[in-house]
């Protein structure tokens, strides 16, 4: 075994290679824009040069003269599309700003025209020749721009339900022996998945097929149908592989219905592959945030008061926010808590979910402040977490279903060599390099959503699993295949998995780290339906006790964990007894606490995530601890992060290989959120300046010398049948704080605004 395939510990599946590995290394995995189309026309977008104002008119003469141009669509001749509500407010859309609807411009880079041509080259040429005349107004770019408005998040965003509070914060903070009162800031960031925001729309009569990278095919199918005003059964979204999502593809963007409408009118398949820079404004992003944290503690480190105020930027049109106080007010024991989240509206495109939406910015603030508190107390930061560790969250007193936070700290500290750290700032160096060690906690809510699945078993053991899940790089194919193989007791190689198609039984949005828990719980349930049918046929007189349901496996692979059958079934005989050629079962699973309309919502593409802090009498989170070494050059102030070590506990680990990879990628994302990534905004024009992969810094291989992932064994029987907490968004939380804490240790300088650039260091 190599490092990529860690030996499974208790409550972990096998580290089998990815189901889709050969397709991916052979170039045979077909992403949205890889789908062959019959005689497609090509679309190219023209986007606005102003952030606020109106279009006076177009000069299209030059563009139309480009040979091969078929049509140019503007708001004057665009297909009529209905509006869709914001995803966070019960709709499908990532933005309610609907381009090509009127002459009004709501943000820089809004789609103002679509050129359709016989070739990509002609469409691009003509798009560059479209001339737009505007009347521009002065836009408000961000927090400090004149003309913005600010209001509490509660009441305007349906997903933001509460500003958690308990006790008497003001009094407790006033009386606290040791205090931290600090402000933090995180930047605008763009997901930049490697696959562009393409879409291809093909009509066959009244039926529409959409090939598009999506993290929610049922949401997209229903959303586009709503916008086009057609029956959702007429729309099919297909994407067996998605070239990265990170939250950018969970909600519908305006481009899809626009292209679908044009394709219908022209009666021809249309393929749109937007440019990288257009992706910065035609989809969502992580908005900049500001935080004011107040911590009060006793001399022994026990927290007595905590206040977290967050402010986030959104568009004029939409009240989007991530609102991470639901996590930060519950992480540590503290009797007096206060919080408030507000939204500032500016002339921007609407932001959206980006990998660990609330926790990346909000935990940066809290975990930086905790480090500041540890310094004031002259206490080891790990011990400060230990003193404030808790089995029950402080707001409602609900118990954590399981919580391995300190276990993670201890394991990671050991692997990292934390004991080698000399606590005083600027006390460690190596030649020209100042060395700093830092750590921080991570946590992420355990979330689940209703999911359906269909499983078909043949006489020869071949199994087919169908579920409209999504392979965005998480290993969805692999863990679904493993789950079915284990539950039915058939060999893994016999299992075929079909996902990424809205004609399959509905699965949840691939977001909020709920996919594995939800889809695998559904697959387990449907596999059990098959086992029960066979059991009944073979042993009609046996009562179908729970014990029997548990123990009757099909018994082809006795070594498999689930085939712990005390009575194995002969497959041929079971089929004979049933008198059928194949057994096929469909089932719908919903998590505990799911709202009554869950299954209806599941079919109509409305995500109903439950879990985390919102559970009735318990609270479920995955936890981890992250340690980093930074090196800051005394003279150049160059900052490197040569070592990232994380230990994580997330319930059952379905596959240690895919889990490790995802956590490793997360740690690198976390480092990047501290040291590299920021979308720069021109304050005068409210425009993203570095909207390409050369200027928007994402990590490259040279940025990540050493990453170590430790998986802790953890069992949690109170969350979902699969026992999985989800870990796609766990590892990149807290890393940014750990890096700044390490920079403080290296230099004595506390940095509270991300990203940290060498010009911010004042050694």
């Amino acid at each position, binding site marked *: 075994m190599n490092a990529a395939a860690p030996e499974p510990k208790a409550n972990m599946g096998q580290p089998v290679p990815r189901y889709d590995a050969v397709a991916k290394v052979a170039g045979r995995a077909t992403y949205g824009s890889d789908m062959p189309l019959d005689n497609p026309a090509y679309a190219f977008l023209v986007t606005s040069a102003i952030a606020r104002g109106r279009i006076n008119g177009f000069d299209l003469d030059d563009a139309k*003269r480009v040979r091969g141009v078929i049509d140019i669509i503007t708001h004057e001749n665009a297909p009529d599309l209905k509006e869709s509500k914001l995803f966070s407010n019960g709709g499908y859309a990532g933005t309610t700003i609907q381009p090509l609807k009127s002459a009004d411009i709501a943000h820089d880079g809004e789609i103002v025209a679509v050129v359709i041509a016989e070739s990509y080259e002609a469409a691009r040429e003509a798009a560059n020749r479209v001339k737009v005349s505007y009347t521009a107004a002065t836009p408000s770019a961000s927090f400090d721009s004149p003309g913005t408005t600010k209001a509490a998040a509660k009441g305007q965003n349906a997903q933001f339900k509460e500003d958690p509070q308990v006790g008497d914060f003001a009094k407790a903070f006033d009386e606290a022996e040791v205090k931290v009162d600090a402000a933090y800031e995180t930047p605008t960031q763009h997901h930049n998945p490697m696959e*562009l925001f393409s879409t291809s729309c093909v009509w066959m009569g009244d039926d529409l097929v959409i090939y598009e990278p999506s993290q929610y095919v049922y949401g997209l199918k229903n959303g586009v149908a709503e916008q086009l005003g057609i029956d959702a059964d007429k729309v099919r979204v297909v994407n067996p592989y998605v070239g990265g999502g990170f939250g950018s593809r969970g909600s519908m963007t305006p481009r899809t219905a626009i292209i679908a409408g044009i394709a219908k009118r022209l009666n021809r398949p249309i393929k749109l592959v937007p*440019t990288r820079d257009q992706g910065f404004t035609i989809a969502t992003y992580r908005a900049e945030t500001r935080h004011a944290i107040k911590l009060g503690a006793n001399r022994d480190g026990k927290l007595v008061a905590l206040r977290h105020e967050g402010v986030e930027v959104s568009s004029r049109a939409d009240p989007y926010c991530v609102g991470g106080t639901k996590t930060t007010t519950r992480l540590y024991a503290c009797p007096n808590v206060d919080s408030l989240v507000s939204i500032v509206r500016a002339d921007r495109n609407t932001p959206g979910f980006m990998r660990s939406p609330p926790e990346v910015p909000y935990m940066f603030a809290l975990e930086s402040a905790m480090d500041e508190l540890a310094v004031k107390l002259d206490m080891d930061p790990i011990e400060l977490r230990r003193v404030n560790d808790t089995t029950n969250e402080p707001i409602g007193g609900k118990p954590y279903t399981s919580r391995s936070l300190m276990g993670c700290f201890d394991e990671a500290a050991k692997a990292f060599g934390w004991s080698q750290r000399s606590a005083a700032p600027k006390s460690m160096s190596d030649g020209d390099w100042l060395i700093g060690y830092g750590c921080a906690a991570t946590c992420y809510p355990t979330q689940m959503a209703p999911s359906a699945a269909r499983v078909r078993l043949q006489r020869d053991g071949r199994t087919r699993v169908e579920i409209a899940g999504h392979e965005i790089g998480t290993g969805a194919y692999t863990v679904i295949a493993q789950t079915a193989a284990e539950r039915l007791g058939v060999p893994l190689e016999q299992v075929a998995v079909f996902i990424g198609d809205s004609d399959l039984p509905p699965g949840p949005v691939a977001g909020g780290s709920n996919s594995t828990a939800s889809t695998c719980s559904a697959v387990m349930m449907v596999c059990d339906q098959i086992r029960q049918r066979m059991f009944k046929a073979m042993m009609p007189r046996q009562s179908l006790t729970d014990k029997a349901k548990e123990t009757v496996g099909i018994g082809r692979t006795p070594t498999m964990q689930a085939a712990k059958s005390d009575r194995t079934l002969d497959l041929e005989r079971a089929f004979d007894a049933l008198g059928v050629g194949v057994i096929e079962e469909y089932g719908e699973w919903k998590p505990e606490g799911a709202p009554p309309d869950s299954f209806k919502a599941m079919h109509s593409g409305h995500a109903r995530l439950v879990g985390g802090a919102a559970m009735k009498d318990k609270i479920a989170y995955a936890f981890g601890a992250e340690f980093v070494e930074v090196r800051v050059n005394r003279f150049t102030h160059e900052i490197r992060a040569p070592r990232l070590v994380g230990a994580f506990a997330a319930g059952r680990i379905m596959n240690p*290989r895919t889990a490790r990879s995802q956590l490793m990628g997360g740690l*690198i994302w976390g480092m990047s959120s501290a040291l590299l990534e920021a979308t720069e905004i021109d304050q005068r024009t409210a425009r993203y300046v570095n909207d390409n*992969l*050369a200027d928007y810094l994402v990590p*490259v291989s040279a940025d990540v010398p050493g990453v170590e992932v430790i998986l802790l064994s953890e069992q949690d029987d109170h969350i979902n049948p699969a026992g999985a907490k989800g870990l796609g968004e766990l590892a990149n939380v807290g890393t940014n704080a750990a890096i700044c804490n390490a920079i403080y240790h290296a230099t004595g300088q506390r940095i509270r605004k991300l990203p940290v650039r060498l010009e911010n260091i004042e050694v």
Partner: protein
Amino acid sequence: MSGNSSSRLSGFDRRAFMACAAGSALVPMTARAGALDAPAPVAQDPALHVEITLRVNGQDKRLSLDPRTTVLDALREHLKLTGSKKGCDHGQCGACTVLIGERRVVSCLTLALAAEGQEITTIEGLATGDQLHPMQQAFIDNDAFQCGYCTPGQIMSAVACVKEGHASSDADIREYMSGNICRCAAYPNIVAAMKQAAPEITKG
């Protein structure tokens, strides 16, 4: 502020402009277009296709292409070889990396016309029948990808990197593979995969 301003042209940064400039310089030398008809206000007329032959994965492919077509778009849109990916179209991400001869090149910045007469190898041409190339197998063994979108480019780049002699240390691999972005950040596994495959490739 009022009046005319031009629309926001897409992708016109300095790098793209230089690529276009290089492209227009190449066209007159290699294009075999027919005579220009009627005075055209548009300099580059997409109707004026050129006939070229590209040698891809050991096979000659006759194509009639708009002279502005890149190798990447020729592969993807005209030859149905969609293994090579478009991640930026600007030479910034490496997703489109193919081999031209022994060299790794970003096919989005290479005009098809400029690649005529040269051996192009894409991810589809790397395996021998069902037998995966050692680098492909090493990527599987070391889980060197997640979403897989950057993977064809990573693998082509990795093969060339080893042959260039730039895979002798971890630091070397990291430096010489830094033109290939992996947003899923599979980098440590990619380095491990290259270390596994390198000896097999250099001895083969």
